[in-house]
């Protein structure tokens, strides 16, 4: 397993390099630049600005300097749109926000989705099953950009229970709506997946064996059925979790959380190259790390996977 982990880690560097080079050139293909504006800068001013940010150098030199600064100083460069800030600084402020509500959203997804799925499976074809399936389908077809405004109308405008947006240092009342709005459709997904796989597992031979041995139903569910039944959920949650903690543009903009989700879109619109590249690297690292953790978790859960590592 250690060997496997090390091998995987070694692939990060070349993958990242390819990604950086590819993204770097791709970004520059888009017409316009960070300093293109309604009022074109006079040539002398433009020349100064480009020089200041090193954008007057040939592209390959810029790329080399960029990579060098990351390797030597862990410096992702200055932000072109927020001129008092560096990319490191913007990410350092925004990422904890996204991480916080993404984490709570994932907790919400799992804490509600898994029990709902299990209950539905255990009470197969009952009132509980139908209401859970109904609820799941209902939440899944409700995209967050519909759900979020409804939540704000109810919880903020009508009942005055929660603030309509903002972050305020991450107080709990500011986290609830972003986390729930972000997670609801995934929660439904998790519930349906859990239900399906639980039903399958419960009818498999090893559960029959456990029943035949006379084990209590409780033990069968918790000790024997839960782990294999969660495998599809885990597969599903891996990418979803990356998505959640890297921020949703919609949630960030709508709830004004100050998270990094919106930086990606803003960066693209404003051609803030260093911001875009910095975020791309962050996202890739997160995706990579979480995928690795996920694979290790598979191995922990499934002996068949473990033996192949």
């Amino acid at each position, binding site marked *: 397993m250690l060997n496997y982990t090390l091998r995987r880690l070694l692939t990060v560097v070349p993958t990242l390099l390819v990604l950086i080079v590819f993204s770097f050139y791709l970004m520059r293909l888009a017409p316009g630049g960070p300093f293109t504006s309604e009022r074109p*800068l*006079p040539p002398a001013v433009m020349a100064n600005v480009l020089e200041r940010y090193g954008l007057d150098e040939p592209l390959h030199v810029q790329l080399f300097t960029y990579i060098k600064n990351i390797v030597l100083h862990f410096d992702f460069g200055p932000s072109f749109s927020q001129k008092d800030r560096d990319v490191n600084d913007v990410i350092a402020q925004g990422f904890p926000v996204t991480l916080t509500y993404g984490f709570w959203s994932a907790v919400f997804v799992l804490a509600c989705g898994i029990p709902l799925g299990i209950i539905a499976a255990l009470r197969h074809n009952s009132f509980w099953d139908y209401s859970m399936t109904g609820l799941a389908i209902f939440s899944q077809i409700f995209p967050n950009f519909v759900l979020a405004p409804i939540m704000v109308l109810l919880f*903020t405008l009508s009942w005055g229970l929660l603030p*309509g947006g903002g972050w305020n240092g991450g107080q709990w009342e500011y986290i609830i709506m972003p986390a729930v709005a972000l997670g609801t459709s995934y929660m439904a997904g998790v519930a349906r997946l859990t239900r399906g796989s639980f039903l399958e597992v419960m009818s498999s031979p090893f559960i029959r064996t456990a029943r035949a041995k006379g084990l209590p139903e409780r033990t069968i569910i918790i000790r024997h059925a839960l782990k294999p039944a969660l495998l599809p959920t885990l597969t599903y949650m891996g990418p979803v979790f990356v998505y959640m903690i890297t921020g949703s543009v919609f949630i960030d903009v709508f709830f*004004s959380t100050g998270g990094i989700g919106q930086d990606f879109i803003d960066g693209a619109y404003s051609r803030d190259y260093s911001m875009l590249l910095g975020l791309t690297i962050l996202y890739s690292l997160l995706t990579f790390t979480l995928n690795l953790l996920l694979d290790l978790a598979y191995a922990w859960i499934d002996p068949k996977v473990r033996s192949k590592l």
Partner: protein
Amino acid sequence: MKHRSLLIPALLSGTLLSSVQAATVPDSATLADDQTFTYRVMDEFSSFDPQVVEGVVGAEVVRDMFEGLYNQDAEGKNVPGVALSHTVSDDNMTYTFTLRDNAKWSDGKPVTAGDFVYAWQRAVDPELASPYAWYMELMSIENASAIIAGDKPNTDLGVSAPDDHTLVVQLSQPLPYFDKMVSHATTFPAPKWAIDAHGKEWTRPENIVSNGAYVLTEHVLKERSVRKRNPMYWDNDNTVIEKVVTLNIGDEAQGLTRYRAGEVDKTEIPAGQYPTLKDEFPDEAYALPRLCNYYFTFNVASGPEAFKDARVRQALSYAIDRSVITDAVLQGGQFPAFTFTPGATANFEVPEVEYATMTQAERDAKAKELLTEAGYGEGGETLSFNYLYNTSETHQQVAIVATQMWKQKLGVDVTLENQEWKVFLETRGNQNFDMARGAWCGDYNEASTFLDLLTTPSGYNDGKYSNAKVDSLMTEAKSSQDTTPLYAEVEKILADEMPVVPIYHYSTNIMLDSAIQGWPINNVEQTWYSKDLYKVAQ
């Protein structure tokens, strides 16, 4: 050198002086206990550094935290800021400002003329590379252009401080409206010691030193910024608002929801919602004139051959029923435009251009006549071209309405094409269009900020219109004491030649809580200062 005194009017009247510079609370008003003003901003600020900041919302914050030579009053007129008055030399090339002796930085140091010299030299310094360096060129300060181009050191800038309370500015050409330009953020003083100590990070709440009515106390990127009153500010006794909070709310509709929930005191009204909100909140919904225009520009240099014919350009302009666009589509109190310069611009009298006085039916008839004369439309060739605009729902609506009018009235075929903002700017800037959307907001309250756009050397003249008479009139206006007839003549030429089709002049639609008083609703630049506001108990 003989100096002509140009004491600003506020100085001539002591009462006016004290009443226009700070919050003027009537005796009958009961102030609210909590003097916090919270407002919505859409995007994160580009910077808090006066010489670097760009954009309207950034300038608003910087204006609260720093004070320049002059401030603007509720009408947009200059009132003393750090400077009390100024004199101008006979040749209109030297401005001497007298600074007050009680102005202080938030760390207690006195604000001196040297702080302005440093700031202005900084603004043109190629090393700082401020995108706003062009503003110093626009102000015609001696050597500004050469310094920006790297040909001279920034110490050669035409600005000096003979003593701590005198600032002398040397211009490269007379500029009658120079004093109107010194309430702009780029011209605010800068604290050299703080910048030297902290570099780019000097604008962080823990490092910043400022000389305005407020100091920055908190800044959470893309979430909020908080500024509290500056006890060192010379007029702090007359400031009422204790704390100003900006909340970043990217979504306009969400801004309105949070306004309804009482979380913000001011927000922008989403497009098309002004009439209903005005009915619902008659005392809180405002449509304020704004110094911005919206126009279609013809590519007269490399566009379709037909656009080289002024009759075609006129016909297309005449056929647009502007009131449909302002009253039925936009519905936000915009003004139909027949001149390039908004009527609200200072010292600008809207000249009587012929087509503005006609009824729409007359304009439509004239449009047909002109187009036929030019050989298009009925009995002639079908006129067809592309119209380019940047992706936005409003621009799309305007484009559809305008092209429908052309189609129905003149039989003109227009293909609509939209592009993402920066792609659009690049396409338009390279003249790869037939007709394109344009809009311009004044940098200062004077007609030249608009009309200069249509002169031959202007870098923003994307349609490449060129008329020697317009150029010479605009050059003459730079040094003339009476610019009104010159600008009127330029507008008349523009109405005849129609290089651009003025569509409407903007308005700002805002919701402002009725507890907030002192808002300068008559200031067309919407230059507001938190220190002039106060909150009444409700």
